[in-house]
């Protein structure tokens, strides 16, 4: 009996210590989880992820449709591109954000938010890799190169977007040039003494403009160059008509635009 009584205080002591620690830790963790949950996510909810997971879980819904693996693969590849883009953003912003944190420009909560986003993305990458492994077959371990493919798709898409922008720009250019050459041409036709205008050493050779325009209109190029040159040579008095009506080729025109022909040769080498 004496023995049991002497054991009560240390046991009580241990129970109280452990109990208080457990309460503290559970409370602390709960609060931390709450804070993490209330934190604004770094990235907006991802649509490719939702699509993939929806497709993956469609068989669980009542009246299950059959989802072929190929559709799932496509959806997974889309998701992989999305994840990889985010991973790149995370990696690029980590250094600068750390510097800002040290300077005190951003708060601890932003940093915590960032770290959480990093963890999420890491987990998602793992998840995508696992799913790719599940969807690949023996011959091709898709998990090994799904991210390569995804990264390539991103660069390719960027390239296409850039090209599209450039296309718009080039359309503007050609519109501008068409308008301008049209204007030059009308001025040119309005003025008298066409030959003198050509002779003048202005920066834009009106003759070059004119022939350029005519040739673009003419479009196709025939093999009857020699004949055309003759036609041009024999009618120097009415250059307007000959230029306007003849299907003149770049080769046929040098007689009327000496400077233009020199330039053209330069361009061709």
């Amino acid at each position, binding site marked *: 009996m004496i023995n049991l009584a002497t054991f009560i205080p240390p046991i009580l002591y241990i129970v109280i210590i452990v109990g208080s620690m457990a309460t503290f830790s559970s409370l602390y963790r709960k609060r931390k989880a709450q804070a993490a949950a209330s934190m604004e996510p770094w990235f907006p909810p991802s649509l490719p992820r939702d*699509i993939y997971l929806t497709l993956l879980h469609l068989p669980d819904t009542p009246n299950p449709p059959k989802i072929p693996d190929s*559709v799932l693969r496509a959806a997974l590849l889309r998701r992989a591109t999305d994840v990889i883009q985010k991973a790149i953003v995370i990696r690029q912003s980590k250094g600068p954000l750390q510097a800002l944190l040290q300077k005190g420009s951003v708060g601890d909560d932003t940093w915590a938010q960032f770290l959480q986003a990093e963890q999420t993305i890491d987990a998602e990458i793992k998840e995508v890799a696992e799913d790719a492994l599940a969807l*690949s077959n023996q*011959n091709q371990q898709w998990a090994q190169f799904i991210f390569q493919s995804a990264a390539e798709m991103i660069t390719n898409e960027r390239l296409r977007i850039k090209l599209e922008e450039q296309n718009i*720009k080039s359309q503007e250019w050609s519109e501008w040039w068409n308008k301008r050459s049209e204007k030059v041409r009308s001025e040119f036709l309005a003025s008298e003494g066409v030959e003198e205008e050509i002779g003048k050493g202005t920066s834009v050779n009106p003759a070059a403009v004119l022939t350029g325009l005519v040739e673009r209109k003419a479009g196709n190029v025939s093999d009857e160059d020699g004949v055309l040159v003759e036609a041009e040579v024999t009618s120097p008095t009415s250059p307007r008509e000959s230029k306007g009506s003849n299907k003149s080729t*770049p080769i046929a025109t040098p007689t009327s635009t000496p400077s233009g022909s020199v*330039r053209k040769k330069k*361009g061709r080498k």
Partner: protein
Amino acid sequence: MDSFTLLPLTIDKVTNTVLCPSDTSPSSSELSTAITDLNTLHRSMLQFENAIPPPPGLVNPKRSAQINKLRESGNAAFRKQAFGEAIKLYSLALEMCLGRPHWEQSALVREESAMIYSNRAQANIASRSWAEGMCDAEMSCALKPKDNVKAWYRRALCLKEMGKLEDAREVLEMGCEWEAENQGKTDGDLRALLRDVHKAIEEKERVAGSAA
């Protein structure tokens, strides 16, 4: 983060295309574009065994061969001075090149399209479509600024022909910078044209001065 938004998606049993409800709220338009992308990707992936696209290193040799063939015939047409025909062929080659599936190497697309653009610029120059030539050459320069003297030269030439002397000078200087490594070997044309442009600018200023 172990939750997701269940989207109202269905699937067409025959064609295996994913369908989404069509209404006009802004979020659903985003969804429908994403779904369209997914379906196009799915269709293009179906050509492979198990619908797994190969790693980026492996490219479809057929397409490369076709692009090359089109470009070669474009070059042949150019040599025959059928410039319109050449432009058409180059455009076709370009379409093929840009139509490469997106999981193939983008570097390859860059390389090929830069070359085709450069060639088409040349054909445009030959048929005196300066604006089109300028744009093609500019594309080529943007895609591959290094080791692309011809494209720089053609771009500057077109600008000069269009009377944009200052722009031409800028382009030439930029081209010379990119070509600085091979100075004295390949950039002779560039420098000659730069001299021409400088002369033309001076001339223009003189004319403007005397007129004023």
